[in-house]
């Protein structure tokens, strides 16, 4: 096995734009790595996203300009990265964003290379120069694990967005290497049509400082209206649990939890939400949590600073009056 003394980062590109997590990963790697930091970028033939990436100062950028691959699916990307690694040798580590793209591509490449991958890391550091120590949560963030991959390379990881801060860094010696002749194997099983998701006009729940969240119990028109009135009064944004995305007015952008959004408001008010782990995984960064539920044993109460046992709608109305 040919080894390459470099630490690699996969640049995530969503519709011709570098996902900011890529910059966060570069800044972090620059801080912790004693080996050269290389970014692998796949982009269309007319793009030059390497210019944006350069501003964060990696040691090297490997640019694969290929229109077909820039639209590639997980299998095509895996083939391309595998071919690249065949040429360069196996890097010491290879980290990806823990986004849908990274969490789909990285494990496929892991299996191709038969190495170890740690998903969803919250922290990374190196020991003895090249051992990557990966800290990952499990059991819905109730347990933290430290994982290492002692005998296989690359040591792979996906890393959650926004746990590291991106800082621009002027590195005059950043090298850009263009690879134009990479063989691309087309996967004819899948036809993919991509379009941008409509941007929310209102304040998004991921940015909101105050959130009123409603659950399945609040699906009636009247309860919704009540929750919205409370949200107005508080200058808060409405968030929902998964079942409410069945309604036309809510979608995945409004949904809090593992399959929706992670939120970090100053205050979160949960109305009629029981607190299944798929939901609570999205609220661990909320500062103050208030919950109202009829079930005195609702799991959500454990996550709450303040809780009310009783009808959530009555509580919501009472809260509205208390705020007059």
């Amino acid at each position, binding site marked *: 096995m040919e080894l390459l003394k470099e630490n690699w980062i996969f640049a995530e590109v*969503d*519709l011709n734009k570098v*996902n900011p997590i890529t910059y966060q990963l570069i800044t972090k790697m620059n801080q912790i790595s004693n080996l050269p930091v290389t970014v692998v970028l796949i982009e269309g033939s007319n793009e030059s996203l390497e210019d944006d990436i350069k501003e964060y100062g990696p040691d090297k950028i490997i640019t694969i300009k290929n229109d077909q691959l820039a639209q590639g699916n*997980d*299998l095509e990307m895996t083939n391309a990265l595998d071919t690249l690694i065949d040429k360069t040798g196996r890097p010491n580590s290879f980290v990806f964003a823990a986004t*849908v*793209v990274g*969490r*789909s591509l990285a*494990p*496929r490449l*892991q*299996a191709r290379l*038969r*190495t*170890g*991958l*740690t998903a969803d890391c919250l922290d990374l550091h190196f020991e003895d120069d090249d051992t990557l120590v990966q800290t990952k*949560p*499990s*059991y*819905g963030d109730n*347990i*933290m*694990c*430290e*994982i*290492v*991959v*002692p005998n296989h390379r690359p040591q792979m990881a996906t890393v959650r967005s926004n746990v590291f801060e991106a800082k621009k860094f002027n590195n005059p010696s950043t090298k850009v290497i263009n690879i134009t002749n990479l063989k691309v194997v087309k996967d*004819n*099983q*899948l*036809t*993919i049509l*991509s379009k*941008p*998701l409509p941007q929310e006009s209102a304040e998004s729940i991921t940015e909101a400082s105050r959130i009123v969240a409603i659950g399945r119990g609040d699906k009636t028109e009247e309860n919704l209206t009540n929750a919205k009135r409370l949200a107005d009064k*508080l200058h808060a944004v409405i968030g929902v649990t998964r079942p409410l995305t069945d309604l036309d007015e809510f979608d*995945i952008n409004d949904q809090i939890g*593992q*399959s929706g959004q992670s939120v970090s408001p100053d*205050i979160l008010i949960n109305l009629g939400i029981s607190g*299944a*782990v798929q939901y609570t995984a999205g609220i661990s960064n909320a500062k*103050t*949590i208030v919950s109202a539920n009829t079930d005195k044993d609702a*799991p959500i109460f454990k996550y*709450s*600073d*303040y*809780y*009310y*046992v*009783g009808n959530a709608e009555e*509580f919501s109305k*009472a*809260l509205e*009056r*208390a705020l007059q």
Partner: protein
Amino acid sequence: MKIVVGIKQVPETTNVKINEKTKNIDRRGISGVINQYDRHALEAAFDIKAKTGAEVIVMTMGPDDFVVSLQEALALGADSAILLSDRAFAGADTLATGYVLSEAIKKIGDVDLVLLGQQSVDADTGQMGPIVSEFLDMSQVTYASKLDVDGDTLRIKRYLETVEQDVIAKLPVLVTVTDQANEPKYVNVVEIAKSFEKSVITWHASDLNLDDDRVGQAGSPSVVRSISSPEAVAKDNHKLADNPQDAADELVRILKDKNILVEDK
């Protein structure tokens, strides 16, 4: 059409603690249930079965008590169930687990569609789908938020950060399913009774064509060096008054005292 649904049995609650003596996760007294995302994968399979008459085979790898979840999947409508159980599988990471699952799917043969949940709620990796598809040399569509069968293709919707994708996938393919995809049904008593007529098949390591170096701990590149409980920000768990108005007044007073709610924002 032949569909394999891979499921995992997970602790009923993720609110687990570390045993101070063994330094391991203490699962005592916590019963096992089907991973929630896998229920959505099962439901997707049953949807397709209803439309096409597909055969649905459910599979899991784990100790013998995982039979409970397979029995429930049979009651929900699976045609057969396979438990992959062997002491040699113990200590497997995602790579070694994916290898065994893929070899079992190869043994079933002529599988058109493999469905899994997007991730498990205990380990949270979401790696099994891509690993199994790679070992099966199948195309993959992860995080499907909607899927419909249309002849020998699937129409799938999935969401990336800022992108919405419509995917047309020719079979065979592996798909992982989100909880957006459908509303899983639960079992009724009649179905449970009937399900006991179908039995769970167990395959041991010797039933599969396995390379010993690739299973269990030996086949696992990842080593969990330590586990710990994160310093949870202690929540007050303050119970508000019983009367709704008293509770609301109390809350507003506290929030204002703590400067969390400032008057006239």
